[in-house]
């Protein structure tokens, strides 16, 4: 039995579920919204076993052969936020999430991806060092509480962007003259600045040994939000040079990720930079634009475990 964990309305989860159904693979989806009815019994020692039950379903944990985990932040589920942090439902939801996280960490079966392997994305400069160690270039980066150091960095590179240091999703923005007054605020919290790299964006999905590359043409600093600034984004499938493809594959493997979204940019001089590795990629955005069979590939990875 392959277990999918998350919200049924989540695009990637739905796409993988459908792909597994098309293959007639044994699959069940543990809907995070079933918190109130869900129970978990987990026994961990020399072996791992237990039972997960929800809405009339019962799954023996030892019967699960592979897991695709895309849980939503449980604290933000409407039923929990409405119940409030002092409610029994809140405590149950947190305990269930923690128990599930514990299980997907210790189960010997294939997990796409284990939370501990995904953790490097929680500190972008930390992950950047791992990317560099794997042989890919990363932009010059400064994280600082010192406005003067940020200004020197800006002057040195001519153009820089700023973005969150943690895994919190933020819109990548270019530092401009209008930010100069606010620069003193960085004294309150270390802020990440990065050399601006002009060029063309690429999203590379690594699924086990398979690599799917997409080229993105956009006139926005952050193509994910091009629509908000009246910009445009076009995505099309492409082929990477074999050496770069291999580096992406190796990078995902070295980070312990069976499925990863690698963000690359090719400068006008032809130099490749890696910005980030997303350990739980929202791949349907790219799949719909390119027709690449990413969900099928993830389904194969799970079914062939």
């Amino acid at each position, binding site marked *: 039995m392959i277990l999918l964990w998350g919200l049924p309305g989540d695009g990637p989860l739905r796409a993988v579920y459908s792909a597994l159904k098309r293959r007639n693979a044994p699959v069940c989806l543990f809907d995070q919204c079933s918190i109130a009815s869900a129970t978990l019994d*987990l026994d961990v020692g020399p072996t791992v076993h237990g039972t997960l039950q929800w809405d009339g379903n019962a799954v023996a944990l030892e019967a699960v052969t592979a897991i695709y985990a895309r849980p939503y932040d449980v604290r933000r589920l409407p039923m929990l936020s409405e119940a409030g942090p002092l409610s029994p439902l809140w405590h149950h939801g947190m305990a269930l999430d923690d128990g599930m996280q514990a299980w997907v960490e210790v189960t010997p079966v294939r997990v796409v991806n284990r939370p501990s392997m995904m953790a490097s994305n*929680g500190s972008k400069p930390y992950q950047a060092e791992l990317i560099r160690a794997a042989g890919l270039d990363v932009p010059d980066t400064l994280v600082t509480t010192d406005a003067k150091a940020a200004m020197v960095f800006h002057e040195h590179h001519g153009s820089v962007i700023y973005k969150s240091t943690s895994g919190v999703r933020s819109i990548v923005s270019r530092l401009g003259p209008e930010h100069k007054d606010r620069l003193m605020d960085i004294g309150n919290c270390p802020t990440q600045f990065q050399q601006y790299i002009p060029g063309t964006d690429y999203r590379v999905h690594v699924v086990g040994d398979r690599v799917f590359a997409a080229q993105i043409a956009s006139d926005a600093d952050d193509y994910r939000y091009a629509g908000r600034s009246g910009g445009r984004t076009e995505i099309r499938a492409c082929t990477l040079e074999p050496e770069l493809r291999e580096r992406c594959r190796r990078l995902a493997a070295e980070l312990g990720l069976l499925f990863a979204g690698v963000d690359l940019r090719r400068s006008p001089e032809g130099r490749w930079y890696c910005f980030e590795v997303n350990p739980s990629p929202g791949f349907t955005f790219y799949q719909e634009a390119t027709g690449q069979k990413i969900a099928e590939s993830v389904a194969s990875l799970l079914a062939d475990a």
Partner: protein
Amino acid sequence: MLVILSSAHDSTARSVVEAWASLGAALCTPADLSTPGWRYSAGQPDEGAAVVAGQIVPASRITGVLTRLPAIHAEMLPHIHAADREYVAGEMTAFLIAFLSALPCRLLNRPTAGSLLGPAWRPEQWIRAAAKAGIPVRPIHRSVRLSALSPPESEIVAEVTLIGDRIFGDGEPSLAAWAHSLAQAAGVGMLTLGFALYGSGLALASVDPMPDLNSHEKIDAAREFLLADSKEGRP
């Protein structure tokens, strides 16, 4: 310089700073992260700088770090606007993970991507790692139900703490050997293991990667470990 990273209210951390006063030890608290002077340049650890006890310290001057918190939490940042505290705490933690990981000196413990204290492991992960290392373990049973009460605390009958190469607590040699094995498996220099009676003997029941430094001997062991590679540590 030895740096003790802790909350502002950690009395043990203050005791350690006092004990290491002659080595120029100083406390670094979350408030220091809201002070101009921090600098982390990716790939250039020597150009980094920290703010410790309000003073800017070049990263190259830091000879060891003792960490006493797994992450910066919102409640540690009363000086930050309430609506921003959670976000700022996450940013500070992410920054510290990168900054500390890049330091070439010894750390207790070296951070991982998930925690400033080392592996961000749940009890089940410690038990699995111990079982794989051949250590007898008492299985953990977790039962999650909407109406369930918290399970009773496990009864720890023996405890050992490992700091560097030194062992404190129960004198049983096998416990010391297990502590060394688990520390090696987890890649940490410091941890406390709790053992309970299970079957015909003792079995591992709990692990804490932040031992209580409640004696001069433990504090000395931490100092010895941190300074083992530096001039300050040599007789």
